[in-house]
């Protein structure tokens, strides 16, 4: 039961926030992630933010994937 999407936190109040992906906005609950900061990318599941995305780690993953992709281009 795992469908969760990264969306960017645009604004927040005490327990709610507005998140956005490609121009699509949604109000979600921040009850499970009370320290979420505006500007962070959050994982959204069933109307709740369940986790925050570590940008540095995300970049590391993307760099790794670029290596795999480049290895194919060099063939």
């Amino acid at each position: 039961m795992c469908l969760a999407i990264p969306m960017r936190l645009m604004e927040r109040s005490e327990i709610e926030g507005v998140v956005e992906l490609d121009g699509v906005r949604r109000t979600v609950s921040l009850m499970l992630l009370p320290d979420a900061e505006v500007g962070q990318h959050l994982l959204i599941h069933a109307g709740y933010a369940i986790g925050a995305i570590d940008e540095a780690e995300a970049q590391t993953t993307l760099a790794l994937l670029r290596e795999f992709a480049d290895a194919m281009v060099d063939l």
Partner: protein
Amino acid sequence: MGRGVTGSSRAPATLLLAHGSGGRLTHELVRDAFLPVLGNPLLATLTDAAVLPELPPGRPALTTDAFVVDPAVFPGGDLGYLSVVGTVNDLTMVGARPLWLTWALVLEEGAPGELISTCATGAARAAAEAGIAIVAGDTKVVPRGKGDGIYAVTAGLGVVPPGRDVGDHRIVPGDAVLVSGPIGDHGATIMACRHGLGSDGLRSDCASEAALVEALFGSGAEVHSLHDPTRGGVLAVCHETAERSGLRIHLEELAIPVRPEVRAVCEVLGLEALSLACEGRVVAWVAARDAETALAAIRRHPGGEGAAVIGRVAERAAGEAALVLETAVGGRRPLDLMSGTDLPRIC
């Protein structure tokens, strides 16, 4: 007020059952809410049936449609506009030039006047854009709770010009599959409305395809078949066409145009863009050698800028899937019709 609509629709503040009973109130409703925007010489006679002028040469084409959409007013359109373009597009898909529509409404007691005016104006705008006339109408009012605000039922009459023959019977292996623009805009817009997703860029694509399809025919490309991907989306029309024709259709996921907002709605709600309705797109099957000509003709036409070749037709061997998707990452999977409605999932 939209392009081509010169009057103004005024609907009663409170819609009563009596507005549907055929007496004075019905007369006022038609006179004030519908005639000012939909009016034309044929409709204005307000008799039991419209007696039409002689049909142009060719084969008559007749279609009917029912429109039930929630919400009835959405970004990019309304039920009135949708009901007209949807009917026009049905005629267009068989190669017919649309001419005349009927427009019947079932209204719910208490339906807001603004809803009725919006839909009447929308229908009028669509009729003007598509170059057709609404020549007969009807209005009924059902008790509160027995309807969903507004339902529309239409019939559309057109003529297929002599020499034109489009249909699945003409599809052959090698044919190119084209779509006239990004997919899923209408379905994503409706689902976003229903589930509290906001977006400035998201709007229904509902529009008449009549002029675009005429441009396609005019290009000289050999057009074999046309379908509008409404309920069930591009997936449904391709699957049904593949099944019906006994052939195999390959779709290329990377070639299928999808707007980022539509993709985002799909990701958030767990939907598939291929299954979402389009109300202003055409899927065309054209002879292989004419694919580029057809594509160029559609792209030149307003509304067709985002057209793309999305697949090919092939022979189908026994035991093979009718519809196959070459996935974005280089895999391959068969596609089938989704059973049941498009329910958002969390799994």
